[in-house]
């Protein structure tokens, strides 16, 4: 497909991420490969759940305290603020927005994902800690939606991230999203929401899919 055959390996890398050499104050020349040196290269592990009542209790707590990453990836994010508005008040269901992926357990993919956003969404997802859940809003995440023929939006999310719950609609109303949260809670409580472990188990497959689309993969395989 590509016309140019001899693309340098680091063509898409940001300048600061390319391999380069630095001369120290004492004249020592240091070779730096930022991707290898600055980032953690470990891959995720499957974190086995506890057994029995303890896991059930923890799952209950996880289900009743869903911290959502405040990342509006697509147009569905216009219905997320109303979710926390006086009328719908998702807080009372234990749902809360967190601005940082580290502290969030739920990633809402609100609709279509442009390739550029997919990269960030993957990064955000990987920065979240196990257990983590993905809610997919709208048609676009199921089979491309309106943008099924667009050159810049993915068609199905389950090829790139493990999705727990899909909510139909374009875009789903806050009520439907709340219903989606209920479904997710059920799923967590039943112990089926092991998306993070699934992702760790099938990392190769997911990565192959992701790398097929994201041509400028200027990050480590797994972004801790």
């Amino acid at each position, binding site marked *: 497909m590509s016309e140019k055959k001899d693309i340098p390996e680091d063509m898409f890398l940001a300048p600061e991420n390319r391999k380069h050499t630095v001369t120290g104050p004492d004249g020592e020349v240091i070779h730096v490969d930022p991707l290898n040196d600055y980032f953690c290269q470990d891959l995720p592990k499957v974190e086995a759940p506890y057994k029995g009542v303890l896991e059930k209790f923890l799952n209950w707590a996880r289900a*009743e305290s869903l911290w959502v990453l405040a990342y509006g990836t697509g147009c569905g994010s216009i219905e997320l603020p109303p979710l926390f508005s006086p009328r719908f008040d998702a807080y009372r269901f234990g749902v809360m927005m967190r601005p*940082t992926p*580290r502290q969030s*357990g739920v990633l809402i993919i609100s609709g279509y994902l442009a390739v550029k956003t997919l990269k960030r969404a993957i990064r955000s997802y990987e920065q979240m800690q196990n257990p983590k859940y993905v809610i997919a809003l709208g048609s676009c995440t199921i089979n491309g939606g309106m943008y099924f023929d667009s050159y810049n939006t993915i068609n199905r999310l389950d090829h790139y991230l493990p999705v727990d719950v899909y909510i139909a609609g374009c875009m789903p109303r806050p009520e439907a999203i709340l219903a989606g949260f209920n479904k997710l809670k059920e799923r967590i409580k039943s112990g089926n929401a092991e998306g993070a472990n699934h992702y760790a188990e099938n990392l190769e497959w997911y990565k192959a899919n992701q790398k097929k689309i994201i041509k400028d993969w200027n990050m480590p395989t797994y972004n801790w």
Partner: protein
Amino acid sequence: MSLFERILFVLAGLFIVLNWGLIMTGIIRKIIARVGMRRGIKVYQPYINLVKNFSIRSQLSHGVMFYLGPVFRLSGGVGIFLFMPMIYGSEYWTNFSFTGDLILISYFMFFGMLGMALGAGEGGHPYSAIGVSRGLAQFTAIELPLTLAILSIAIQYHTISLTEIVAAQQGGIRNWTLVTNPLATAAAMLSFLGAMGHSPFNVVMAPQENPIGPPTEYHGTFLGVLQTNRAILHVVEAVLYMNLFFGGATNWGTLILKTFLIYFWSVFVGMVFPRFRVDQSIPWLLKIPLAIGILAIIIFMI
């Protein structure tokens, strides 16, 4: 009372404070929700959040200091508690308070902050760094009026023992520092706004600017520890102010009511104002509360 018994009571007190802190957070969130025309969270939601945070399976570290940050922070909060006389006149609930406890407590207030700053800095996130620099700068500006107010009280009551300060305020509202030394109270209460991290002084965790400041990288158990500390810290700081200015408490009921009201003060102001920029908040703290604090001292100097 043996040391063992004392330790038991300290732990029991810590447990009560932790629970009250969590419930108070819930109640405050509920009130905030009501102003926002909402129903708000369940009152016990903070407990669930805490359990959830401790239940996170994978943890990720950025180094030793990253680990120690929350620990320092917690020890800051617990440290204040350890030397804080909770209930006046009670043998059991005075913890390890001693003659110079006010000095130690002032130190612990900074200790947690510094530990957190080091840990967050290790996290490597630029927003953590920004938050830390803002937080430390602003905290200095907060400490200054508070210290002046404390000094003013120390001069007023000729003591730096909290128990004695509380003792001096017994016998009705007329004896409270609030009445006897309104300037120091004003300076301290204004700086309290800053200490609690609500608007207009929440420059550290300002969500629209540097989400969410120092704890950006903290998650799971780390965050759980931070939350635990937060619950304790809010209560014990309120207890400090209560002891200093509002006559202390002679039983747990009074303590709960007074700490709640004192903490609510910061929420009361915080809900309706946007936050300052850090270069506005520090000058403001250095202007108004500091001026009042200096005045409070000068009055007693004369």
